[in-house]
């Protein structure tokens, strides 16, 4: 998604208020953006607390700062600056975290972002965007250039096969129709599931929805109806259980009076074997691979 992200930003360089700050990341991705933006592209160095404070100051001066780093370095290290300097003043700073979930794979736990949106969504008015596909980025970048809210953009890897065409970005989208329950996947995890489910007939697969924006106020009515009829629901996310989408969904459905007999939530378990590996390795350990998820809902 980094390349899609960079090219989408390149289309926005004419916006004079747009400022890009990076915490010394961007090799092999942001070079052309740096060239095009000139003095409005600033590598602030390896100093994330200062980067967030500076971004808040810039936003106070009515500029539109984006800040960028590997996800945990931009939300976990400077959390108090995000809380006090950005969110307490309701400033529209865009926080971009590259490598959502286990995205940095075998680089290890320090580079993983397993609790990012759970933590950030505790802050007032902050919105989280978790694009599922490269095409979503093209839609989101112009939207974020105009937003009035602090925002977190969680970048991952687009896993959608080329032959499948996504509809325009929406907080909730239906990707696959099926009759064996409903899966709701958060962000890029939907790509692999989409591929797998596309190879199966309707009557041997669940429906698949993808959620790309949090928090949500309401689920689409069509999704609620599907959940009621299917009576079988699985939510999946590359994020911890605490503060995750699964908890939000369960809370929502309970308040809404939607009662179903089977609901499961699959989420990042952390490092159960205390071994490290690729993003695929970690997903497998948490039961988040497409085949594992299909088994889970069919059983």
């Amino acid at each position, binding site marked *: 998604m980094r390349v899609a992200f960079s090219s989408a930003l390149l289309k926005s360089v004419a916006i004079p208020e747009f400022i890009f700050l990076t915490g010394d990341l961007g090799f092999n991705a942001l070079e052309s953006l740096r060239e095009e933006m000139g003095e409005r592209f600033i590598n602030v*160095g390896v100093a994330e*607390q*200062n980067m967030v*404070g500076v*971004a808040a*100051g*810039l936003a*106070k001066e009515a500029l539109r700062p984006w800040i960028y780093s590997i996800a945990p370095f931009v939300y976990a290290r400077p959390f*108090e600056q995000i809380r006090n300097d950005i969110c307490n*003043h309701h400033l529209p700073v865009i926080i971009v975290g590259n490598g959502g979930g286990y995205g940095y794979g075998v680089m290890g736990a320090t580079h993983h972002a397993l609790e990012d949106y759970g933590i950030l969504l505790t802050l007032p008015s902050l919105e989280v965007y978790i694009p599922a596909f490269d095409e979503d980025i093209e839609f989101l970048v112009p939207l974020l250039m105009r937003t009035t809210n602090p925002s977190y953009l969680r970048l991952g890897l687009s896993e959608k096969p080329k032959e499948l065409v996504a509809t325009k970005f929406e907080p909730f989208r239906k990707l696959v129709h099926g009759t064996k329950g409903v899966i709701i996947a958060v962000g890029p995890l939907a790509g692999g599931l989409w591929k797998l489910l596309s190879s199966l007939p309707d009557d041997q697969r669940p429906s698949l929805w993808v959620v790309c924006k949090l928090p949500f106020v309401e689920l689409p009515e069509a999704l609620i109806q599907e959940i009621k009829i299917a009576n079988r629901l699985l939510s999946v996310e590359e994020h911890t259980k605490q503060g995750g989408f699964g908890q939000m969904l369960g809370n929502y459905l309970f308040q809404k009076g939607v009662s179903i007999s089977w609901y499961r939530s699959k989420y990042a378990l952390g490092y159960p074997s205390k071994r490290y590996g690729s993003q695929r390795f970690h997903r497998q350990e948490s039961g988040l691979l497409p085949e594992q998820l299909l088994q889970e809902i069919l059983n």
Partner: protein
Amino acid sequence: MNVHSPQFKELRKKCFLRLLTMHYQSKVGHLGGNLSCLDILLVLYHTILKPEDVVVLSKGHSAGALYIALWSVGLITDEQLEQFHKDNTLLSGHPPASGIPAIAFATGSLGHGVGLAAGVALGKRLKKSPGRVFCLTSDGEWNEGSNWESLIFIQHQVLNQICLIVDLNGLQGFGSTNEIANLHPLDEKFKVFNMETVTIDGHDAQELNRELDKLSEKPRSIIARTRKGSGVSFMENRMEWHYLPLTEDQYNQAIQEISLQ
């Protein structure tokens, strides 16, 4: 306003008395660090600031002094000041995030103001808009690593609209700055960061006016030597006045001392 004028002396006295009364009535401590920086804020607001300038109170626990300074220039009303520290007030113990346009940022957790000031200064430069940025820090808050991150950034970007002011009262939360994490001499450290740095008497209005007014090619820092609890004999340089509220007797004595100055 001229700092030598009788009006400024009167203003100063009025503000010190109002600060004491406000804290006494609301039974609030933190007086020591408010008294140590009130002179700095009064000179800044009455003799230096232009409408395009921005003030960041990084030592948010001196909100009382900031409120009094803003009140003295008509940016906070008497009614608002009466509500200090009460329920449903805009004037909380540390500066609020909204509701008082003259207050740019809510602060209170130390080590945030310098980065915010750097962002405002950079923004002004990129927009080619005028204005200076004054950031008042405590001395203890230079324990915070985030401040040094911001100093690296300020020197690298040569943000010369920035004027840092350190309220060097020598005391911090639970002891003296020398005992806890000695950074003395702080001015030498700022100089290493390529800042134009001076050390002055933070209660001398003339020195404050002269140094706050100066512009330079480099970012500036003013080390203002101050006395915690300045002006009240039993408070001066005593750590407990970081926290304690005044008793009635203490309040009366403090008022008398200030009135006689």
